[in-house]
């Protein structure tokens, strides 16, 4: 993002609220038994219910309700014992019933919030307005010839809409919020949070006001931001657009706009006067959704520890820096990897930091290089700990350790065995080291003379020569020690 940081703008403050749609990870759709799998041939994954056939009726998928409750509990929201489904009426070819079944004035969850953290801003609590459940529409594709095609495979997919309060103050915060939310969705296995497959989508409400003003400015709604990057770009663009209009003495129109990813601009979609009157009313085909306190307790009992709580714990219990804790806990799979490794460690806090460095460095580098999900790391965490122990025990040097790491990543080996097989073991035998040092010093009489004459910088040269001679396997501590002794006047 090259746009100026809005939080540093002395005159204007941006106010952002997000509406995120996440697809609930169920096997079947929200109101019928059709599967939720992705990628079937168009219109091959539907039934009378999700194609809006006359006489068909919705039946709520209780598994989807459980997931939405789990999400509500994870963000500390209040889960209501009674919520109401409502029809949201509008015409569109990919909306087969002519209404979406959603929740309106009585949503499943209200309140709660998430912590966000980032380099650009202090740790902040973002309040949630509500979480409600609804079914997805189908998918329209518009051909060049003026014809449109409708695929109803997605019609009826289970969604939850997660609405934040207008607490976000910059695009960076908005992106951090989305990442925090996605992390929660994944930790809790409520959703796979996959933006590309459309299971994690976002609309934004944006307004700008003079710094210090408490009333909200006129907002615009921005749709169609289908990647994290686009969210940042689109919000930056829209904030700048607002400021430009306001500084020129103009007024913001309360529009709904679409983000054009190609042209990198937001384009007018519809104005306030064209806003739909959705004519919400209670869905008569479904009973009010009743949730017992036993059910809520059961689901609460199954909640995993979430990223933010884990990160706090890593800092307190392991003494890790906030940055490390953030990286290690961003995904549950990585946190579990780290924790399995921690359990195998035998050393103290030095080893914890070393482990963190290995994971944040080499492990994530290899994942990135190979496009691997962290859930698919081939190297067992116990192996990584073995490797760290070998360094601590002076069996191998840090440099050799990198070679060992790559080898045991590529193929499962016992690191000790591998080191022995390949002759990578560190040489800690002073006799052998002395022998090499003598050889090196003998070969460089001029440098020895200069060193003794006061050019102490040459020490590094000798270390390098000795290590090269020993193919990197000399114990660095001992090599240094013996070099000092031999140079200093064993002569």
């Amino acid at each position, binding site marked *: 993002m090259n746009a100026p940081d809005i939080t540093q703008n002395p005159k204007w403050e941006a106010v952002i609220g997000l509406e995120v749609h996440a697809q609930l990870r169920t096997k079947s759709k929200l109101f019928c038994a059709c599967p939720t799998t992705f990628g079937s041939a168009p219109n091959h994954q539907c039934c009378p219910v999700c194609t*809006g056939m*006359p006489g*068909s009726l919705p039946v*709520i998928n209780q598994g989807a309700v459980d997931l939405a409750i789990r999400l509500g509990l994870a963000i500390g929201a209040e889960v209501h014992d009674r919520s109401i489904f409502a029809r949201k*009426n509008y*015409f569109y070819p990919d909306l087969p019933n002519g209404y979406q079944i959603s929740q309106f004035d009585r949503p499943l969850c209200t309140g709660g919030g998430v912590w966000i953290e980032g380099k650009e801003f202090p740790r902040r609590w973002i309040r949630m307005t509500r979480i409600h459940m609804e079914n997805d529409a189908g998918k329209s594709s518009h051909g060049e010839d003026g014809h449109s095609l409708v695929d109803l495979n997605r019609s009826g997919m289970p969604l939850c809409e997660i609405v934040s309060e207008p607490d976000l103050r910059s695009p960076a915060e908005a992106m951090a919020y989305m990442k925090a939310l996605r992390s929660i969705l994944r930790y809790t296995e409520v959703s796979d949070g996959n933006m590309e497959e459309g299971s994690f989508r976002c609309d934004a409400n944006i307004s700008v006001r003079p710094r210090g003003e408490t009333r909200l400015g006129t907002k615009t709604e921005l749709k169609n931001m289908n990647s994290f990057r686009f969210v940042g770009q689109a919000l930056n663009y829209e904030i700048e657009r607002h400021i430009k209009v306001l500084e020129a003495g103009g007024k913001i129109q309360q529009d709904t706009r679409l983000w054009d990813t190609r042209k990198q601009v937001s384009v007018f979609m519809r104005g306030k006067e064209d806003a739909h*009157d959705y*004519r919400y009313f209670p869905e008569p*085909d479904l009973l009010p959704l009743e949730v017992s306190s036993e059910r809520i307790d059961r689901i609460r009992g199954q909640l995993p520890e979430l990223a933010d709580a884990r990160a706090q714990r890593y800092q307190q219990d392991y003494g890790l820096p906030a940055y490390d804790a953030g990286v290690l806990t961003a995904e549950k799979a990585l946190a579990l990897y780290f924790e399995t490794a921690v359990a195998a460690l035998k050393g103290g806090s030095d080893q914890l930091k070393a482990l963190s460095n290995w994971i944040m460095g080499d492990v994530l580098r290899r994942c990135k290089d190979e496009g691997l999900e962290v859930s698919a790391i081939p190297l067992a965490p116990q192996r990584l700990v073995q490797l760290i122990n070998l360094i601590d025990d002076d069996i191998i040097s840090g440099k050799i350790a990198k070679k060992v790491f790559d080898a045991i990543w590529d193929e499962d080996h016992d690191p000790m065995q591998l080191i022995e097989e390949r002759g990578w073991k560190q040489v800690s035998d002073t006799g052998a080291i002395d022998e090499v040092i003598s050889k090196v010093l003998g070969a460089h009489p001029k440098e020895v003379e200069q060193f003794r004459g006061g050019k102490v910088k040459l020490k590094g040269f000798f270390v390098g020569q000795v290590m090269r001679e020993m193919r990197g396997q000399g114990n660095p501590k001992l090599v240094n020690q013996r070099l000092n002794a031999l140079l200093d006047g064993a002569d």
Partner: protein
Amino acid sequence: MRLSQLRGALERGEVSSRGLVETALCKAEECEDLNAFITMNPDAALSAADQADSERAQGQVRSPLHGIPVAIKDNICTKGLRTTCASRFLDNFVPTYDATAVQKLREAGAIIFGKTNCDEFAMGSSNENSAYGPVLNPLNPSCVPGGSSGGSAAAVAAGIVPLSLGSDTGGSVRQPASLCGVVGVKPSYGRVSRNGLVAFGSSLDQIGTFAADVEGAAALLEVIAGPDPLDSTCSNRATEPWSQQRDPQDAPIRIGLPKEYTSVLDDEAKAALLAPLEAMDGVQLVEISLAHTEFAIATYYVLGSAEASANLARYDGIRYGVRVQEAGADLEETYIASRSQGFGAEVKRRIMLGTFALSAGYYDAYYNKACAARRAIGADFKQAFEQVDLIASLTAPSTAFPLGSKTADPLSMYLSDIFTVPVSLAGLPALSLPGQLAKDGLPWGLQVIAPPWREDRMFGFASRLEAKLVEQGRSQA
């Protein structure tokens, strides 16, 4: 043509199921002018009859309806058999699935005989709102059969079939039963699955039954009632042996007569209601009050139309049904053309009414107010049932009226459901059975209303009242 007689004849081997279907087909042809059917199903019906006969020959009798032809109102989905809802919009619509009630009938060995005419999407009280033309009343072809299930009522009244299914949202089974002189039952809301019943007012719609007598209508209900995982509003209560329900002739029972209903009746109508009741032993007549009755029709037309406006949004011409697309027309123009040409006037009127009632700025004044009125009407009944066991009234304020006499005045048409609509709003079970004949020679209908889920009590008393009426020879008052 009573079910019990046909069943007896089948059991004694005096007639075959094929024979019943063939006779019904002949009779239907004879009565073609009544226009009771939209789609006949002769081949499938005959082959189902053959199967029923061969099962019976092997000693396999699935149910009391085994081998009995049943006509189905054309707003109830039948797999592979055209289901038009009497709308031009669905003229070519063939469902891919059976309504739960139809599926239960097939499993019971009943024969799906054909699809009966009705008011378009069940909106009407005279069967004059059908895209396939009006149904004539078999008792007097210059009169309407009532509606919206006019074809189902007429098919039974004309003796074409012994049984038929209708649907009742505000009186659409009871009122035509009354006008055609047959028995019509609307069960408690949630008693019969609505899966496959094309929705009009979802919170009111119930599939109901027609027969020549109480026992037949009850037997048909026994087969189609019961839990259904495909309808969340369908009760888990099991079906009961209602057709066997018969109170002793002198059992003490308190029957409520709502003064708001009786006060609008003229002397003849009042006598038609009271004479048979007063002639019964053990019956204590109690005047009761249903104080919010005057709001019922308005409440019904707000709520039913609001739900209809959403329920009928799916008829957009995109996936099935009529699509009227002029060259170069855009999406909105195609929607408008398809819906303008596909729907009839009454359907459009209700869609507009319902859309208006749900609109921003009007929702509280109409939809919310109507919901409050509905609760008050329900509370009236609840209170009344603390004093009485059942409530009785006329089913409709008049006997069958001449074709065309009310079509120009929707409000007077709406008022023909004045005694049935409150019951629908309260979700109660009720039935209509033929009472005395009026001066015009047409029958009055008597409505028996029961507390929620008390179909047993309703049928027990109705069969006793029916016996009394038979005894009185249904003579003119």
